[in-house]
């Protein structure tokens, strides 16, 4: 009997371990209010450690080799470089004042930073850690997206309500596309064909044709029982196969799952309060949302679009990035 029980429990353990990813990825979450970065193991979904960083950490990204985290310390007017092996701050980048969000070029050599206060996009060369140039854009720049081919950079300006297309070679604005109120985030489709821009106040996601630089579709959201004002799209992520998109809906406490081919909203996934940014794990099996007001992050299974677990992190989690290794 005992042997049978042991066998059964062993079988259950094996079955349980088969259901989860083979190895864990490290998830880094910037906590805007308590000036920390929380490190979470994606397999155990437990907090591994908390790292003290500069003031008001928001935008967060990681080098392609997974060795360095780049973090916008907005109130310190700098970008901090954190070593992922030691969690020490090993350097900083001259970002210009109040950096909020940035994007790393596909070759991993250049960082494009939105400076919210002085209406600039700062281009930083990572090797020399120096500013290459500054591009003047609309008022309150925030969202940053770069085409997978690295040719086009999109910056959204919150007050001008525009998506500015910047040529990455000449560093000049080539097109301006008007979108809805307070655009927050820009995300390119993997095939370079479209860029999706979320509008927080407008409550929409504009799908912009990258070739014609025109809005070709506007995605709207509707959740029964919720006021339209509570639906505020912010973070957007599109799967590597370009078939599915996830849109964080702010105070609606939901992540919308959108069919990226038909633009139909397929599902709303309930997460924590004021969901802000999203990040996939490298295997694209899980997407993680930061829930600012409830101080947690939610792991969502990409295959089923069901929330798996929420994990408490620091105060006001803002951005999230997952180590590629």
């Amino acid at each position, binding site marked *: 009997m005992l042997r049978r029980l042991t066998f059964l429990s062993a079988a259950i353990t094996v079955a349980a371990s088969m259901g989860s990813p083979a190895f864990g990825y490290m998830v880094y979450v910037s906590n805007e209010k308590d000036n920390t970065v929380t490190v979470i193991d994606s397999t155990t979904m437990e907090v591994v450690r908390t790292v003290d960083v500069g003031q008001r950490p928001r935008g967060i990204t990681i080098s392609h080799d997974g060795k360095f985290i780049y973090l916008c310390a907005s109130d310190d007017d700098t970008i901090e470089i954190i070593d992922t092996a030691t969690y020490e701050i090993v350097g900083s980048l001259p970002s210009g004042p109040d950096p909020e969000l940035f994007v790393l070029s596909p070759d991993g050599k250049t960082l494009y930073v939105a400076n919210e206060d002085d209406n600039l996009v700062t281009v930083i060369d990572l090797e020399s850690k120096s500013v290459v140039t500054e591009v003047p854009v609309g008022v309150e720049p925030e969202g940053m997206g770069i085409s997978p081919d690295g040719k086009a950079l999109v910056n959204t300006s919150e007050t001008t309500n525009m998506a500015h297309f910047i040529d990455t070679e000449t560093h000049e604005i080539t097109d301006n596309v008007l979108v809805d109120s307070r655009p927050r985030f820009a995300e390119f489709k993997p095939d370079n064909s479209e860029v999706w821009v979320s509008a927080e106040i407008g409550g929409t996601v504009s799908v912009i044709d990258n070739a014609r630089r025109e809005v070709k579709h506007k995605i709207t959201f509707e*959740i029964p029982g919720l006021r339209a004002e509570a639906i505020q799209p912010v973070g957007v992520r599109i799967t590597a196969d370009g078939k599915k998109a996830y849109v964080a809906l702010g105070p609606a406490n939901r992540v919308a799952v959108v069919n990226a081919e038909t633009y139909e909203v397929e599902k709303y996934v*309930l*997460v*924590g*309060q004021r969901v802000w940014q999203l990040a996939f794990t490298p295997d694209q099996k899980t997407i993680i949302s930061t829930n600012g007001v409830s101080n947690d992050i*939610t*792991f969502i299974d990409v295959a089923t679009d069901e*929330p798996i*677990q*929420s994990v408490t992190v620091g105060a006001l989690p803002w951005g999230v990035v997952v180590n590629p290794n």
Partner: protein
Amino acid sequence: MTLQSATGPVPAMERGFSARQYLVCLKGILIREGLRFLNQRERFISSLVRPLLWLFVFAAGFRQVLGVSIIPPYKTYVLYEVYITPGLCGMILLFSGMQSSLSMVYDREMGNMRTLLVSPFPRWFLLVSKLLAGVTVSIMQVYAFLAIAWFWGVKPPWTGYLLVLPALFLSGMMLCSLGMLLSSMIKQLENFAGIMNFVIFPMYFASPALYPLWRIQESSPLLHKICLANPFTYAVELIRFALYGQVDWGSLMLVVAFTIAFLGGAILAYDPSIGLLSRKQDTGGNA
């Protein structure tokens, strides 16, 4: 039932029936209960309508669109309908436990139960068989309800559907034996309304079936204590944890303890030599 050979007052029962004979008796009672249930299709439907009304109407009106905060066993935010589903499973067991107690009173009045109770099998066995029959029927109702709830978006892990079976069985046994204990105390069918008001509703509302206990504690510490003294509280929590693949050991132990107490009480109450039944029958409606 063809076991009516006994005459006169029921003698001491242990006269060496074989296990097979016991099984024949159990089977007879189970089939009778099952048939009664199947023949009364309205009863099946009405037993489902009640929890479904709560799920579709009450939960919709009460719906916290922004989610119920995380409490174990949930690992993330859940919608209100997901939260109340285990409570509604408990509700089915509670109502049907009480309903089988109603049927006991009815049976006693109309003679069926008397036929059963004069059979030569030990009375505890007859009562337990009746209990098992009642619980089996209510578990079928719960699964029918869970199947409908699945289409409503309440989708616990599939292992939960298996693990919840023992939890439902235990909770059902507890509530049915409570019903049986109560049925021994009511004289007539009309008193069932009293049971409804004084037992079913207080038990249902003073439990975590509809709202988390921490929320009750916030508004009234006294009410929270009442909830903690309510056996139904533990039945609901046992079902809730089981439905999400976990065992709430505290609730499990309490449910087992309550079941033993209620069942023991019912067997004593129905024992003709010491129980309440014989006395009640003198004044009851089936003289």
